[in-house]
């Protein structure tokens, strides 16, 4: 990491740390654990919904149903809980800015998250371009399998990185 970036990141952490909101969170003992619990419950929804879509792309789950049904059931549950995840994540960052923002595990997690969201967006895009995308027996089989495998690896890695934040702190 460049020294300039590192210095400004440090300044941001110090600034957040001194805001009244951060001080208020730091003064309570229950806010961070409660928010963490909500955060992981929302992750359960996102990860399981993404898994169901990925398993369908691989033909392991709901193979007898059209891809349309799978997307309409599970895709909203990948996107909407992200609002909860961003909100709870922001509270944790405000409460402990240095522990999160300067943490290599956290930085990796954000990188993986952006990639996972791009991959999820891609499968939605392919679906819009070609109405048969994802349906078993449809043309780009390799693309379908690749998206599913990469997506599963990314969501798992995000959960791993999240757990490792505690070990780098």
């Amino acid at each position, binding site marked *: 990491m460049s020294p300039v970036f590192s210095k400004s990141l440090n300044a941001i952490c110090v600034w957040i740390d001194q805001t009244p909101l951060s001080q208020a969170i730091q003064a309570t003992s229950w806010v961070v654990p409660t928010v963490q619990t909500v955060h992981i419950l929302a992750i*359960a929804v996102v*990860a*399981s919904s993404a*898994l*169901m879509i990925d398993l369908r792309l691989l033909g392991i789950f709901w193979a007898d149903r059209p891809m349309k049904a799978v997307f309409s059931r599970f895709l909203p549950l990948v996107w909407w809980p992200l609002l909860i995840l961003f909100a709870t994540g922001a509270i944790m960052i405000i409460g402990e800015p240095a522990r999160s923002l300067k943490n290599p595990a956290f930085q990796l997690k954000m990188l993986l998250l952006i990639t996972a969201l791009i991959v999820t967006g891609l499968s939605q895009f392919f679906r819009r371009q070609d109405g048969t995308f994802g349906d078993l027996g449809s043309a780009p089989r390799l693309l379908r399998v690749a998206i599913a495998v990469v997506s599963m690896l990314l969501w798992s890695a995000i*959960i791993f990185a999240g757990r490792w934040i505690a070990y780098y702190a």
Partner: protein
Amino acid sequence: MEFDRAFGWLQATPVAKAISENEILFPWIESVHVLAIVLVVGTISIVDLRLLGVASLDRSARRLMQDVLPFTWGAFVVAAITGSLMFASDAVNYAHNFFSEESSSCFCWQASTWRSFISSALVISRIGMSPSRRRGQPRSPPRYRCLCG
């Protein structure tokens, strides 16, 4: 105490010692454990929401359970194995923590996970016992009407 001796033996086993002595083994096992629990909770809620009549209504509850529960069980087995490994690495302390006050909230959370899992297992075992519907016969009323768990 007899229990302490048993747990002492457990944490002296080569596997338990390897986990407690290696710096990165525990975090890796814990990460797999978290991933597994996340999938247990997430997939079981797909079934729960169907039983509550909230989502996946275009699929019968029985079919949905056949579709989803294998993944729940699979994730649960992984969670149980990784959890046992972590427990074994510091068995005496964890066994004492189990009954101590500071871990009671954590234990409650684990207990609620267990409870939702057991209630779902009960539901599926009841469905498994109900006579299968033959072709052309009217649909029998659901036998899991009361979900007390």
